[in-house]
């Protein structure tokens, strides 16, 4: 999608690595930051973001837009997000296909929606409202989940696709979340990827998770595991070159270890794309 240009392979910028931005030693294609962490009035985080933005493209990734909430969209939040967009000119803005607030109270979590027509209509309407407000299309990300509802009437990937089509927004496909939810709910991660329209996918997320024995938990506290790398390879085969980002949010290691995740993604993408080109050359 033209609104979501290919940026290469980036990482999520976290506080631990702020010094590496300030001393100019952070070398990645692009950075994603959590929007809410910069909805502040001044100080170090905003200075770091200024410096980062001067060096590489930056993307704003929200966790509290609460697109699936039955509360009204927060005017204060939209204003703060608009201010950030105006100040930092992000390559794009994204948030999650979930809800996180009700009756004015915020869970600060990514809570699951039922996959129903009611929810499609609600979320798509709110995505459209946000897009009109920001004057640009946004990306909506699939979340990891630990429960499903008996009154869902469609698969998660049909739900994600329906919202994206009805709102005319892009999809931020979190490959790790697909893997986690597929494992937790017993569906096929490959079927999920096959059900997502390639023309809507503007970004891919990769992260680590934890195996709790009874379920997988989306903890972002370790490296991407081999089966998720295999799923990413399949995603690149289906979606082609898509801006890809490695997230690491807990027990955060040195910067080089996080960047290594992005570089691993780059190698896989390069292998897949050269295979595709080789195949085309042979068939020509």
């Amino acid at each position: 999608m033209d609104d979501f240009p290919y940026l290469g392979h980036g990482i999520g910028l976290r506080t631990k690595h702020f010094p590496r931005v300030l001393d100019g030693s952070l070398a990645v294609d692009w950075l994603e930051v959590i929007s809410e962490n910069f909805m502040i009035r001044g100080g170090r985080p905003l200075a770091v973001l200024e410096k980062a933005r001067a060096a590489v493209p930056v993307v704003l990734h929200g966790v509290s837009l609460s697109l699936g909430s039955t509360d009204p969209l927060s005017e204060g939040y939209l204003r703060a997000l608009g201010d950030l967009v105006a100040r930092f000119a992000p390559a794009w803005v994204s948030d999650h296909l979930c809800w996180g607030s009700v009756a004015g109270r915020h869970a600060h979590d990514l809570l699951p929606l039922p996959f129903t027509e009611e929810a499609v209509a609600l979320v798509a309407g709110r995505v459209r409202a946000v897009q009109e407000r920001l004057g640009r299309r946004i990306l909506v990300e699939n979340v990891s989940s630990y429960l499903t509802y008996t009154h869902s009437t469609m698969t998660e990937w049909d739900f994600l696709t329906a919202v994206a089509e009805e709102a005319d927004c892009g999809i931020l496909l979190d490959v790790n979340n697909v893997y986690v939810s597929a494992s937790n709910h017993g569906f096929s991660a490959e079927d999920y990827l096959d059900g997502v329209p390639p023309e809507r996918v503007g970004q891919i997320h990769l992260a680590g998770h934890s195996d709790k024995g009874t379920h997988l938990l989306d903890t972002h506290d370790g490296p991407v595991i081999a089966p998720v790398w295999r799923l990413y390879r399949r995603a690149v085969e289906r979606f082609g070159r898509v801006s890809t980002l490695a997230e690491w949010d807990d027990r955060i290691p040195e910067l080089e270890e996080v960047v290594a995740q992005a570089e691993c993604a780059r190698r896989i993408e390069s292998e897949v794309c050269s295979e595709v080109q080789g195949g085309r050359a042979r068939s020509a």
Partner: protein
Amino acid sequence: MAAPALRELQEAFWRSLTRVAATGERPPADPALLAVLSSPPPLAPAERVRIYADMYYLRLLDVLREGFPRVCALLGEEAFERLGGLYLARHPSTDPSVRHVGGAFAAFLGTEPVPAYLADLARLEWARLEVFDAPDAPVLTLDQLRAVPPGDWPGLRFAPVAALERLVTAWPVHRIWQDESATAAAPARTALRVWRQGFAVYQTAMEADEERALAGLVTGRTFAAVCEAFDAPADAGALLLRWIEDGIIARAW
């Protein structure tokens, strides 16, 4: 059973996440939520809801722990988790940014049977957080002050920078903040100023004359009026230089 409307579902989900305000106890998952959950093995619906309820508290307790590290250390982990849970049950987050979730924690501690200095210590830690991300603003420089003709000094007015907080506590919490063993200190009225210079947050206790002078400055009194807080005019000049060095005042002319 008819499927619940999304609003009802979200309210039932919320009731299942949050604890009982009176006791801080974890409630059972809401029946209206459990009724519409799939239950493939190995987890029962209530166990699936529990995953979310646990994450909700762990995440917000982490935010409190980061915002109030000294209070947390002095309470000990077990008491901190119990009080944090009770606090969150009574003061759920009402802002999309999690940054604000601890805004009522100091007042809450003041109502709990904990050592009396902890509420004041929490106020100091909250002031440090407020200063950390307060608006950036130009500060008064010595060169700007030197450019003012001496005859104009008495009428000068200054403004505090946004990244300055003043608080009066009943305990010398700046000492407890620096050294946890100072909790043995006796209560003593303490005037503090907390400010940011560059990216670093600082704090210091103020003597009575500095407290009065800074209060006068903040309310827009002239330099001549501010000087009245001091017995010797030289003391006022020295203090003005210190405020400039600390970067806590701006031009108001």
